[in-house]
């Protein structure tokens, strides 16, 4: 059994309309994750921890910043915050989900400030297999696994 994981920065801005966050540079991709237009397709069925951080580059005042982790287009986890004092808020959503082959994961965001708000380089999405049987053999201990830091390195993250 392969160990699968995907991690990328967001390369997008948050608007007053709900929308999937597009990806920028990749930190890593173990497994054949297909990503287009902010939606990632899972290559291997299993249980995954999905977490993201999203940090804004400009402030909100009396606004909310809302986020959804989406699995196959349905909300699977929510994180939200608000601010009354012109701060660069940053939030961290997470959830544990079962993903089947070809299930999709995305993160949609919204702010009601009336202007687009950029995300900083602290903003990442990670999808990491929650556990891997030790019987995974070379997939686990060699080219794909969490023990050896190998894989498809596509960016600085």
């Amino acid at each position, binding site marked *: 059994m392969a160990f699968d*994981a995907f991690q990328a920065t967001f390369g997008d801005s948050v608007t007053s309309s709900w929308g999937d966050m597009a990806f920028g540079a990749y930190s890593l991709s173990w497994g054949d994750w297909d990503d287009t237009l902010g939606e990632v397709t899972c290559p291997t069925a299993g249980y995954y921890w999905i977490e993201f951080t999203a940090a804004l580059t400009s402030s909100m005042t009396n606004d909310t910043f809302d986020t959804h982790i989406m699995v196959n287009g349905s909300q699977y986890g929510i994180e939200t915050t608000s601010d009354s*004092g012109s701060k660069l808020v940053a939030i961290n959503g997470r959830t544990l989900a079962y993903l089947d082959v070809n299930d999709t994961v995305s993160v949609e965001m919204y702010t009601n400030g009336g202007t687009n708000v950029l995300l900083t380089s602290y903003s990442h999405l990670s999808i990491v297999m929650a556990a891997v049987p030790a019987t995974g053999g070379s997939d686990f201990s060699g080219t794909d696994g969490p023990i050896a830091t190998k894989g498809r390195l596509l960016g600085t993250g």
Partner: protein
Amino acid sequence: MASFAGGKIYSSVAGQEITTAAWTQVTLGGTSFDSDVFASTAANELTVATTGLHGIIGSLGFEENHDAVDTLIAIRVNGTEERRIRFQNGVAHWPCRQIFVMLDLTAGDDVQLWVYQSSGSNATIWDAEAVTSLSLWEIPQQTFEGARIYLDAAQSVSTGTMTKMQLGGETFDVGGWSDIANDQVEAQKTGIALINAQVAFEYGIDDKEVRAELRVDTAALQLARASFEIGHWTVFNVSGLVEVTALDAIEFYVYQNDGFARNAFDGGNAGMGMQVQYMGTI
């Protein structure tokens, strides 16, 4: 039986003062558990044993009643910030939040918890194991065991009352951990469990306080407290890496003090709910 690989350290000494408007590393002098090579309490950090992907939870609280205080909690690796959360509480009594991240780390890396606050005066760290801590774990080499359960009908939470959430819906269960007949998860093995729960109110509980507790065998092992200034909805997560004993009840309690009873959001996987993963023996 597979062994857990990781560790958890916590704030064990009263009185660490965080100077206003200055980044400060959190002092973490107590060890909750350690699979032998991770904890380095003398340096207030956890050291990576094996190169690869790791999970990290940083949890931090203040012994202060913060109102409109800009607060940042960050995970640093070898002194360099990797991830942060930043929030402003309304009127939280002793606020407490967590950051939960996955990072690709190299053997020997030092993982640290840092904090910043701009209240205008010093703020004291809440020195409790259930509040201020740093956890690090390797991806467990075992078959997945655990459960995801959720609130399956709207539940009224009375104002000012810590209330057990009636988690009667189940998304998945591997290994018999789900115990939805009792609105909880029941540990099936002794060892370490990774727990995340989502607080979700379909209201803006503005400038009031919402608290969450993860309880194991009736003890509150992980807390979170937040207050939103302008709540669209009031939603946040509470996460903890904790020790469990087989047959322990793992429960999710929530509190709000809006002055009225408020319905918790029964939104299936999007609403109030809890996820538990068994991580192995310690």
